């Protein structure tokens, strides 16, 4: 957080810290993103491992998964998205409340992965904008946690009038 401490000489009352309002709001929001895990394939098992006790994702404040787009801020697309699933995913993305973020977990969600076939959508960025791509097939839980921190930085430094504020 862009924080500049003011020494006691400038501020007679005592120490104080100043920051921009957007930094402050970003700091408050970044630890409470409710993820909606849209799990279809193998990466779902790695997501379960990230949620389980060894790689606990609750440390990032993202403990509470919501299975309906209405209460979700973050859509984690986990696994292969086929052409039959694409309209469902597009509808779920549209029905999420602003401000919404998308993590595309795994090679299949990010670019179709090893399945360059007739029935797989080659990357969910053909459907809607994606914030963080996580490489790997399946990505290790540590890579998913790195994606969390990357997204938190993005939320932190987002301007208030930015995308849907």
């Amino acid at each position, binding site marked *: 957080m862009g924080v500049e401490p003011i020494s006691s000489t400038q501020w007679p009352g005592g120490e104080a810290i100043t920051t921009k309002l957007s930094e402050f709001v970003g700091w408050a929001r970044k630890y409470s993103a409710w993820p909606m895990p849209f799990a279809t394939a193998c990466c779902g098992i790695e997501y379960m491992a990230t949620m389980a006790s060894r790689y606990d994702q609750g440390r990032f404040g993202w403990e509470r998964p919501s299975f*309906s*787009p*209405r209460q979700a801020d973050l859509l984690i697309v986990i696994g292969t998205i086929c052409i039959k699933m694409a309209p*469902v*995913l597009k*509808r*779920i993305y*549209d*029905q999420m409340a*602003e*401000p919404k973020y998308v993590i595309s977990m795994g090679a299949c969600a990010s670019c179709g992965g090893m399945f360059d076939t007739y029935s797989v959508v080659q990357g969910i960025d053909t459907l809607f904008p994606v914030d963080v791509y996580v490489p790997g097939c399946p990505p290790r839980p540590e890579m998913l946690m790195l994606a969390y921190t990357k997204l938190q930085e993005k939320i932190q430094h987002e301007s208030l009038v930015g995308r*849907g*504020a």
Partner: protein
Amino acid sequence: MMPQDFVPVLITFAIVGGFAAVALIAAHLLGPKAYSPVKQDTYECGVDYVGDSRTRFSVKFYLVAVLFVMFDLEVVFMYPWAVNFRSLGVFGFVSMAIFLLILTVGLLYEWKKGALEWE
């Protein structure tokens, strides 16, 4: 009871009402409003839904709801009694016993009438 004694109660109501109002109004003003027809559509597992949700349903559900509300209120009344159970002494105990007895009679009546079975 002097009118001044009611001040704390009013303060709590004000705080409660105020907090709810502020939360709602702030969300309405500050929150982004991006309406689109798809967003207004009902969410039913991501696929087009069939029919509407306002169809007739069996009376069993209503019955269970009413029974729940009744016994829930019974428990709500027990909270203040349980909090100062010691200070109320025997008088408090007996009056609550009578209250519970009346409700147990109600429960037995429903049980015999078969309102508790689901089928």
